[in-house]
């Protein structure tokens, strides 16, 4: 029974971690689906969201929920500006160029964050820090992990409703499938893309705040991006539910590897999983195989 409880605990911890990976991956996928650009600075957007939240809740002492909302808005606005000012100018360049561009941006963000907030790890208190939820049968969970999972589910439901039921959401879907047709329909495609970047950044901010009780905020938080990549690839790079499923799988596999395999295998595992998926089933679990028409 103990083993089972431990397994369950690992799975739930893994799911929580996986939700974070999934949310960051979601950001990747949103941008990729719309503009075919890969945003290698997604992790750094999450870091910025975390620092914004730290400033509002930790430094300025605002109410947690207010600070949460403000962080999302600020990060979203930042994402919008990023697209409007920088990314729009490189439309038409090969994908590789955009990869390098966002890599460069990641460096800049990291250094800027370090300059503004310093390089030490900081934290702020949330309603979920250091609280536990006792589910009975010996299963004890941190409320922080539970909040991550619940928060992710809520966010994804909101996004689903947004994309399928609201005009803006449908406009976004249209723009990402066929830019020219969307233009003809009167959809302001460039603005829509900037809004997608804003949403993507907002999602990263949510991930950051959900993560706050579990992990300190510091300049290198963004390196989670690589694991989020594994999640996005595993799910199939064009699939939104896939990103989450992929994230959870990566998170759970990581936790299991960390416990059952020799020390230090965790990082190796996520990379091996990533490489294997790419070799064996590059379209991931839910992606589509695409072919060039000649």
């Amino acid at each position, binding site marked *: 029974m103990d083993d089972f409880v431990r397994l369950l605990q690992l799975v739930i911890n893994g799911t929580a971690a996986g939700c974070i990976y999934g949310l960051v991956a979601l950001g990747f996928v949103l941008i990729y689906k719309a*503009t*075919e650009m*890969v945003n290698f600075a997604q992790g750094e957007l999450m870091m910025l969201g975390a620092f914004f939240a730290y400033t509002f809740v930790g430094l300025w002492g605002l109410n947690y929920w207010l600070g949460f909302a403000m962080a999302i808005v600020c990060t979203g606005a930042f994402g919008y500006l990023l697209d409007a000012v*920088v990314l729009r*100018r*490189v*439309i*038409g*360049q090969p*994908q*590789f*160029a*955009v*990869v*390098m*561009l966002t*890599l*460069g*941006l*990641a*460096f*800049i963000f*990291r*250094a*800027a964050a*370090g*300059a503004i907030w310093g*390089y030490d790890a900081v934290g702020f208190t949330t309603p979920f820090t250091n609280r536990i939820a006792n589910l009975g049968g010996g299963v004890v969970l941190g409320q922080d992990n539970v909040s991550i999972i619940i928060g992710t589910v809520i966010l994804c439901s909101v996004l689903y409703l947004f994309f399928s039921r609201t005009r803006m959401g449908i406009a976004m879907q249209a723009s990402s*499938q*066929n*830019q020219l047709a969307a233009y003809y329909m009167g959809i302001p495609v460039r603005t829509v893309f900037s809004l997608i970047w804003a949403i993507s950044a907002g999602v990263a901010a949510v991930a950051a705040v959900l993560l706050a009780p579990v992990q300190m905020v510091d*300049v290198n938080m963004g390196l989670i991006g*690589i694991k989020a*990549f*594994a999640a996005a*690839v595993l799910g199939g*790079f064009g699939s939104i539910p896939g990103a989450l499923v992929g994230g959870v799988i990566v998170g759970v596999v990581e936790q299991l590897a960390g416990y059952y395999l020799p020390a*230090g295998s965790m*990082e*190796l595992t996520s*990379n*091996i999983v*990533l*490489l294997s998926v*790419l*070799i064996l089933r*590059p379209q991931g679990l839910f992606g589509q195989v*695409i*072919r*060039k*028409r*000649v």
Partner: protein
Amino acid sequence: MSQFKTSYEQDLRLATKRSDVFWYGLLLAVLLAIPFSLSEFYVGEMSFVFIYAIAGVGLMLLTGYTGLVSLGHAAFLGIGAYANAILLSEGVPFAVSLPAAGLITAAAGVAIGIPTLRMTGLYLAIATLAFGAIVVLVGEKWTSLTGGFDGFPVPTPTVLGFAIEGPSGVYYMALGILVLVVLVAMNVLRAPLGRALVAIRDSEISAQSMGINLAFYKTVSFALSAGITGLAGALFGHYVRHLAPDSFGILLSIQLVTIVFIGGLGSLHGAIFGAAFVALLPQAIALVRDDLPFGIGRLPGLEPSLFGLILVLVIMFEPHGINGRWQKLKRWFLAFPLHKRAAFRRQKTYAKTDRLR
């Protein structure tokens, strides 16, 4: 005044104009004389540039010419460095350990090339990223071979009884290998192999219908690129004298890709320009650090942020890199005063979708 060509053979020559031979000869003479005229510090810096240039040429063949993006190329530097150092420490003579390191790294290139044959752009980039991370992690864990975090000291190489040591020794070694590697690269580019690689980059479907075996040539490209980078790695080992696994991580991989990119994709000159830029940037920053306004110079993390900023600016305003600017400059001079403004303005490009929708 350019010469008129009278035979196809002339197009095949490495230096198509007689003036090229003069200028490159002069450059070589200057480079050979440097250790005698400049201080050890500058000699060391130049060696570093050469080593980066060799790795740059290696990566340029793969990414710039074949179109296969590798975000894990530092792994090949590491494999080459360790292979060379380990062989030397086992008593293998340098004349054998150096080429062996290249071959071992080439084999590693094949090992990652073959499983990734069907991968396109982005996925290949991520796969190489994962590969790079795995190599570093293995390097850290396999302590019996690599010494793990404690590092691995690199023995001094000897050739024909003479120990190659000191900054000058490394300098001449690096210069020699660089010249060799550039010659090989130029041979590749003027042969069917080079054309096959470019064909694969520009249109895989077309390349196949011309009879190019994609699997074979992609693998050859990986092997060649990795092998050359492995040689750079071996020299890197002699430059730093002490190896540690975590110096071959993603940061170095990104630096290598930056070399290729800032230099100008698809040109050997670009690899050299880019290498000079990336290798000398830290020193350049250190020089102007104190003079920067608002105390920016005193901020930690200045280097990576400037790195990032330059990358961003280059992509936004000169995606063809230093080589692109250089070509534009040459054209401007050659055409002056008859040059047309429009010829130097960047063409508007439109997004071409990779998707089948």
